């Protein structure tokens, strides 16, 4: 958190991507979140991923609901249109926006309160419709902006900062997305940039609903002992990664993992996805096996991370609706209005 304005001057030698933008061109305003908040690392990962995938910043529409996570679209892609909508209702706004113009990239950023509690319905239906978008949940198990109430992803038995144990079953967003038909499902950890950036890049390239659950500990309200969303806890239970650097409470964390076995998945459009961190025999295209493994991993108290599932032959809502290639928002009266002659025929049929 800082009150210093970001310098607008760029170093002239900053490297540019294929579409002529520097990494700085993908940045946004200075974050107003707490120092060390994992959400800022996710914003940085989004910036990196967009820069590396050569997306023109203004061709991205950023959408969010309400909450700490939903504030973050202001902190990246400053030249893109953003929409800070209604609590829990980002998915419907993103769906409508996507219907209006299929040519933009839709990036939805939400939180666990926003998507698992108040907005679970819209999250569910967005996944099952296959809206072509990147849907990131910055998951910390707690309501930050209202100061520390449990959210629906808080694990049963985990303790609040005031020491109260949560008695409700947690909602596993990843399991839910799998069941609802999301065609790209991933989980990561806010500090693990090496894992997260490629996941965001792959999600950007994916056609259909691409969901990433990013565990992002809340340094202010959910980073104490007894919490299952604290840095320490996640570090200790991360199934894919067992090497994390020690961090102090208020410091943004970054961690580098040794790459594990690499698997290649080729998608319908020829794009290739490199999968890291997971075991040799892990098949990210086998939906049933993945769902079983998720259950086993959860029962073992692990936090399974990585690209957990991808459907290489995915489709999206526009394909289901058979909409025209031209974005609907570019059609005018010539394409849309049947005119007076047709209307006279309609009149005649009503007599």
């Amino acid at each position, binding site marked *: 958190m800082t009150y210093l304005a970001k310098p607008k001057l760029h170093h002239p030698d900053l490297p540019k991507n294929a579409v002529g933008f520097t990494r700085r061109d993908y940045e946004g305003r200075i974050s107003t979140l707490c120092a060390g908040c994992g959400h800022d690392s996710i914003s940085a990962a989004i910036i990196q991923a967009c820069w590396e995938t050569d997306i023109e910043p*203004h061709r991205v529409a950023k959408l969010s609901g309400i909450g700490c996570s939903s504030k973050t679209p202001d902190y990246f892609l400053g030249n893109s*249109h953003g929409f800070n*909508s209604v609590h829990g209702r980002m998915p419907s*706004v993103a769906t*409508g926006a996507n219907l209006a*113009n299929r040519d933009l990239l839709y990036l939805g950023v939400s939180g666990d309160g926003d998507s698992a509690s108040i907005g679970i319905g819209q999250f569910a239906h967005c996944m099952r*419709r296959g809206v072509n978008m990147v849907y990131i949940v910055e998951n910390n198990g707690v309501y930050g902006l209202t100061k520390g109430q449990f959210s629906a992803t808080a694990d049963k038995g985990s303790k609040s900062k005031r020491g109260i144990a949560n008695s409700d079953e947690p909602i596993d967003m990843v399991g839910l997305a799998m069941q609802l038909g999301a065609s790209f499902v991933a989980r990561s950890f806010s500090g693990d940039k090496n894992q997260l950036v490629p996941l965001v890049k792959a999600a950007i390239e994916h056609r259909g609903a691409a969901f990433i659950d990013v565990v992002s500990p809340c340094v202010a309200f959910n980073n104490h002992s007894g919490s299952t969303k604290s840095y320490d806890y996640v570090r200790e239970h991360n199934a894919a990664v067992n090497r994390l650097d020690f961090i102090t409470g208020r410091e943004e964390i970054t961690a580098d993992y040794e790459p594990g076995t690499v698997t290649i998945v080729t998608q319908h459009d020829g794009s290739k996805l490199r999968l890291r961190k997971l075991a040799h025999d892990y098949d990210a295209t086998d939906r049933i096996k993945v769902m079983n493994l998720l259950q086993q991993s959860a029962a073992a108290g692990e936090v399974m991370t990585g690209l957990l599932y991808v459907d290489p032959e995915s489709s999206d809502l526009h394909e289901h609706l058979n909409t025209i290639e031209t974005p609907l928002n570019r059609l005018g*009266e010539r394409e849309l209005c049947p005119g007076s002659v047709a209307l006279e025929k309609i009149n005649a049929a009503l007599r």
Partner: protein
Amino acid sequence: MAKRVEAVNDFVIKFANVNGSGSASANELFARSILRMGVPVAPRNIFPSNIQGLPTWYEVRVTETGYQGRRGGVDLMVAMNPQTWDADVKEIDEGGYLFYDNTKPLPKSKFRPDINVIGMPLTEICNSTYTDPRQRQLFKNIIYVGALSALMEIDPNEIERLFSEQYKGKEALLQSNVKALRLGRDYAQQHLGGPIGLKVRRADNVGHKIFIDGNSAAALGALYGGATVCAWYPITPSSSLAEAFIKYCQKYRVDPATGKSKFAIVQAEDELASIGMVIGAGWNGARAFTATSGPGISLMTEFIGLAYFAEIPAVIVDVQRGGPSTGMPTRTQQSDITACAYASHGDTKHVLLFPEDPTECFEFTAKAFDLAERLQTPIFMMTDLDIGMNTRLCAPFEWDDKATYDRGKIMTAEMLEAGRDFGRYLDVDGDGIPFRTYPGTHPDRGGYFTRGTTKNRYAGYSETGPDYIDNVQRLLRKFETAKKLVPAPLLYPAERPARFGAIFFGSTSPAMQEALHVLADRGIHVNALRVRAFPFQDEINDFVASHPWVFVIEQNRDAQLKSLLVNEAKVNPSRLLSVLHYDGTPITARFIVEQISQHAAARTVVPLKKVVS
């Protein structure tokens, strides 16, 4: 011997049927055959919240003068439903007629001595003619239409012509329907003792008018108005609007070259999602709408407030009905006025349009998209079940091919490139309406972050009081601009100087027009003003100021339009007298006449006729 109601081209027939028995199409056929004889009809569905096996009614007012309001009273009851027999028989006017299936004899106590009873063994005829049970049921309806056509002297050729239009290319269906029709006619002519006192005589009062329901008309308006995104959630009485839009789009909006759709329609998971999608699409530059009813509006209100403050175009068609839950909701009311005018949290006010019939449903819905994009705000099309779900005889639709869509103030990439100053919430010319950019317009100019309230003129984050006030005051200026853009009120002046004024709106219109004529005949002259939109124009204030008393006729309990007039137009409340009808049935001219006559008498106005005589 009961007296006989004698009437030509001016009476009411009510069909009491069982849901799902195929009666609806037969009853509509009956109504259309009268229309084809040049005699206007005003039919209405009265349907409880059921799908199959339970009561439903269809009421046809035959009205040579063309009054489209409900008249009240029943001259002929076609009683086809034993469940509702007692109430149906009771409802018939003295001297009226009861037509029923007398296959199974009924005790004398089930009838009334003051009505004329016509029994016809419909079931027996069907059972001896058809073996298939479904045919027995379906053709029973056509057989009674045939019998009624004989009893009322309806030209059978018109009915047969309707069949041949409906079953074009389906010869077998055509023949079987004609056969059933003739079966009914022949039986009636041979056994039912000649025509009854209610007769249809050929006239020339239909002209070029069209016969359509308001929901289909509004769907056509959306088609012509350029709607490309429709998100909706099923709710009576609005579902048929979205379904009609689907039908029209499939016919008129599929690209012939590619077979691809120039529209996107999503049946959402609830009304929260449907309005969210509409707002997302509107934000992104598509013309988008939803159709719903009161409970849907309640669910949408948070989003509606956001759209108001974030200034996003949206069209919401509210087909109003009675209250929450199930039951009354299949009846009509105008009871969402307050809910829509002030929908949401914070200081909000919304533009409402009040169409009177399907013609205006078409016109106003198409216009609503222009208004929404010009004003960058949600526009409510306030129709109701009475207009929406009943076929109504109305003026044909018109479209000017030279008209272009008003997409409002859009700042383009070229304008940005040319260095135009872009402030998303900056009032550049005093009308309160700022420019907007579509997402994806320009690589480094014109992008902004959309928020509800917390912003300055350049869409920068601001929590300061002056910035907030600056913004919401501009929204008031924008609402002022809306007055000039929405449909103006229409004046219906009395033929003689009048001390009374009357303000009415929406589906009350046909009953009101009829009531004005009846009142004038009784010497009570009333100037009437039909309000067609909110915000209210100055003409409304002038109208109220120029009458000592002004009736405000509404179909709700709480005089919602009157409250809005007092609150927003600042008219003098002591001049306003409410005439309120809210039992779920459409308001009638009889009701309005009775209420206004009572008020008039209480204000010791001597009718002019008496003064003269």
